[in-house]
């Protein structure tokens, strides 16, 4: 009697234990957060049917991959990588002869950088879809991406700077974009003891003219105390004409900053009156300072990049231009500084602060008029904290970093440490809602959320830690972005999608502002590349000493010429390949055996040049790398490489058919000949 009972009891308890453990385990497993965020119709809100377009273009910085990723929202579909500061063997960017100059700096050709902040150009404080700017953090540079072609067309190096982090934020009409130094360094940079930091190290704030494509330049630099300048945003509306930069390390630590730069209770926001700076510069108060830097830009017609070296900048010392800069004390190493759509509120994200302080622009102006100064730092007045403070958001969460706005009076702040997005009300400073995000959000983004007119429908959380959000892929994981619906009182989580590199920030814009301007191909007739080949019969091979230039066309499904002889070991060969197609999405590629650089991808109508140095005799095949047509596999050719001093003559085959076509075109009367040119895009 006893036995079976005890057995039953045991069995029952074991079962209960198993269920309990199972339940516990499932609790643990679901603590990834899938349980508390799913919303019933989330799937339908991000579903973009096959063949349909997304509502927004979103531009994500690639972080340490030096590129930009273009996504569609709300689907989170990846549309394109735009090469900016990094060589990309996939397209030949930075490898082909045309784009090599884009990466030129005073440190030589730099094939990599760390992209942080994409910034859309603006008209009257609203993103306009003309250009996208992005900074290179490591070797300070700013780049312009033309949103007709989604290609980098201009790169400007920032002299007298190290760590171009507070960049490239724009003024409301993109007259300027800015770049401020994250690392202070001696200016000009010289060999000094590191412990002479306080004496020798300085920061600079650069204002870069940006409203003329191909003509970016440093308008002026402001020489600042040697703090770390972190982020910036322009004023707008009433605060138009001002720029706000956060600073940390006002302790001026130069080692173990983790601890030593976290000592002061407050660091600063630097409020810069750039209109006044302009006046001081115009009045000759800026000194001409030596500064070596490069300006690289793509010529629109030849699509060949050029580099120009510059040698000086106008440097303005705030002491020579009183009233140009004020410091606003701001708690605990502030990171983001964000101006609300009305231009009145300046929100700071103190990484280590327990509140979100909000400064008032009108109070700041009054405080300046009333000279409510606490102190002066190297000639820059420090305003009293309470004289500029509009309010503080109490207990917002831990680690506030960045704030964006929905245009309906609400602000959204990313909380890195407590890993959440916090929605709060401007004016009342009340927290309205919280949404956990996975994990550790850095920037957040609302389309137009830093502008005068946010499109306040979606919010993207750009998370720094991924862990278990996707199928594991070894130690190195994709980054995790999350899309939230912010149209209601409560935020709704809609979608997770992976991003590549380490996206810091993103900006988004309604697709309608860009998609109609997107170029389908480059016009062959306007191609002014010095080695452009516009008709099949015009291809050929030429020797200039040890350099051999091959003029070649690519068209479905062949190269012409496709047999080349007379190349010798010791020669440097330039394949100048022109894609003579004038059709949408008919792209050709060119790869050759033993090329130690990359392939080149050639868009319709453009010419791209691959440099190739054959190292031994033999036959070298080349082929089209971008699947172009049904006979793509037939799109190939051979180069014969002979020994140095060989008597093999230079030879490039041109087909009889091509010759007859050319002859026919030439036989036509003048008028018709031109018509034929226009019609068949050749000759």
């Amino acid at each position, binding site marked *: 009697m006893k036995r079976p009972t005890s057995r039953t009891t045991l069995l029952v308890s074991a079962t209960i234990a198993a269920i309990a453990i199972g339940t516990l385990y499932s609790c643990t497993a679901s603590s990834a957060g899938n349980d508390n965020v799913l919303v019933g119709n989330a799937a339908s809100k991000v579903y973009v049917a096959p063949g349909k377009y997304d509502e927004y273009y979103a531009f994500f910085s690639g972080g340490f991959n030096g590129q930009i990723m273009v996504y569609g929202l709300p689907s989170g579909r990846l549309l394109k990588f735009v090469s900016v500061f990094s060589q990309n063997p996939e397209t030949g960017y930075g490898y082909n002869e045309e784009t090599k100059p884009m990466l030129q700096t005073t440190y030589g050709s730099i094939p990599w950088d760390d992209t942080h902040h994409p910034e859309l150009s603006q008209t009257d404080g609203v993103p306009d879809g003309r250009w996208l700017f992005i900074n290179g953090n490591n070797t300070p540079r700013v780049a312009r991406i033309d949103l007709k072609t989604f290609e980098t067309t201009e790169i400007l190096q920032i002299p007298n700077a190290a760590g171009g982090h507070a960049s490239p934020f724009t003024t409301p009409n993109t007259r300027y974009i800015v770049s401020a130094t994250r690392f202070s360094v001696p200016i000009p940079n010289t060999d000094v003891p590191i412990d002479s930091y306080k004496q020798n190290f300085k920061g600079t704030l650069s204002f870069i003219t940006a409203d003329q494509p191909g003509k970016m330049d440093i308008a002026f630099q402001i020489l600042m105390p040697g703090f770390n300048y972190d982020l910036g945003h322009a004023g707008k509306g009433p605060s138009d004409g001002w720029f706000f930069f956060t600073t940390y390390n006002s302790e001026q630590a130069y080692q173990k900053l983790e601890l030593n730069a976290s000592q002061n209770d407050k660091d600063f926001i630097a409020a810069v009156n750039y209109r006044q700076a302009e006046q001081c510069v115009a009045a000759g108060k800026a000194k001409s300072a030596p500064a070596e830097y490069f300006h690289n830009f793509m010529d629109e017609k030849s699509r060949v990049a050029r580099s120009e070296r510059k040698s000086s900048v106008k440097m303005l010392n705030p002491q020579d231009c009183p009233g140009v800069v004020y410091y606003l004390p701001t708690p605990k190493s502030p990171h983001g500084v964000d101006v609300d759509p009305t231009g009145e509120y300046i929100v700071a994200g103190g990484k280590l602060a327990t509140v979100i302080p909000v400064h008032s622009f009108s109070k700041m102006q009054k405080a300046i008029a009333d000279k409510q100064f606490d102190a002066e730092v190297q000639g820059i007045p420090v305003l009293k904290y309470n004289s500029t403070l509009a309010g503080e958001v109490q207990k917002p969460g831990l680690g506030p970093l960045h704030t964006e706005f929905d245009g309906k009076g609400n602000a959204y702040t990313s909380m890195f440490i407590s890993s959440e997005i916090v929605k709060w009300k401007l004016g009342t400073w009340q927290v309205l809602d919280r949404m956990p995000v996975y994990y550790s959000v850095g920037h957040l983004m609302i389309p137009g959320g830093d502008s005068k007119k946010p499109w306040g429908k979606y919010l993207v959380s750009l998370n720094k830690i991924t862990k278990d959000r996707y199928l594991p892929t070894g130690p190195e994981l994709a980054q995790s972005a999350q899309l939230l619906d912010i149209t209601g009182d409560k935020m709704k989580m809609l979608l997770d999608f992976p991003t590549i590199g380490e996206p810091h920030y993103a900006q988004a814009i309604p697709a309608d502002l860009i998609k109609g301007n997107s170029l389908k191909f480059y016009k062959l007739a306007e191609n002014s590349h010095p080695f452009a080949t516009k008709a099949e019969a015009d291809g050929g091979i030429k020797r200039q000493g040890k350099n051999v230039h091959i003029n070649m066309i690519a*068209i*479905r*499904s062949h190269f012409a010429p496709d047999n080349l002889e007379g190349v010798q070991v010791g020669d440097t060969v330039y394949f100048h390949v022109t894609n003579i197609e004038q059709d949408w999405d008919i792209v050709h590629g060119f790869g050759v055996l033993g090329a130690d650089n990359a392939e080149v991808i050639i868009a319709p109508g453009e010419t791209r040049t691959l440099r190739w140095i054959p190292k031994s005799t033999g036959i070298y095949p080349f082929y089209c790398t971008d699947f172009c047509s*049904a006979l793509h596999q037939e799109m190939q050719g051979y180069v014969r490489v002979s020994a140095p001093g060989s008597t093999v003559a230079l030879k490039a085959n041109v087909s009889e058919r091509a010759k007859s076509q050319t002859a026919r075109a030439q036989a036509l009367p003048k008028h018709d000949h031109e*018509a*034929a040119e226009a*019609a*068949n*895009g*050749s000759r």
Partner: protein
Amino acid sequence: MAVANLRAVPVRKEDRAPLPGIGSEAEVGVSTAASNKVGRTPRLLILVAAVLMIGVYFFPLWNVRLTAPQYPEGLGMHIRINTVEGATENDLNNINNLNHYIGMKRIEPESIPELRYMPWIVAVVVVTGLATAVVARRKLVYAWTAVFLLVAIAGLVDFWKWEYDYGHHLDNEHAVLKIPGMTYQPPLIGAKQLLNFRATSWPALGGILAGLALALAVLAVVLAWRERRRLPALS
């Protein structure tokens, strides 16, 4: 409507009056001047027809459109009175580039002599049409319409023949894609599947205007014919 009006309005005196220089009624022994001349309505129709024909200088006669899975946006050709051009700047070249796979010869407007004659032929049609409207002689109306009709038929037949030529006379030596028995003649009117491409061919605005002009001319003939039969009753 026009017919009803015609019946309601009596033939006006001035319409019957001989025009200067054309006073041959007496010579041929016709009892009244009216019997040689058409009424106001047929005359107006001929005038409108001739004027409409001027439109073919400004608008394409025919459109040929090609779509394929890879060409959702399509490729198009406009056949004009004096040339063949792409619907967009590069369409003709792109069509030619694609056609090289099947060995079709390049469509080059310069090599089609008809495109050089056509503007002159239409000019003759327009000028004689206007003259017919002024002169308004019945036989001239018949003759002009007959010539116009012949020109139109000849034009269509010629167009069809060129389509046949392009579609059948392929350069098999250089053709990459050879499918036994396959020809690539696009339709004169309507739609047809040619490998991965669907070719559709329809009159464009110029062609519609020409068709309308022809219809008006034919209507003028019908009315003129009826007038002639009613004349004895009137006199």
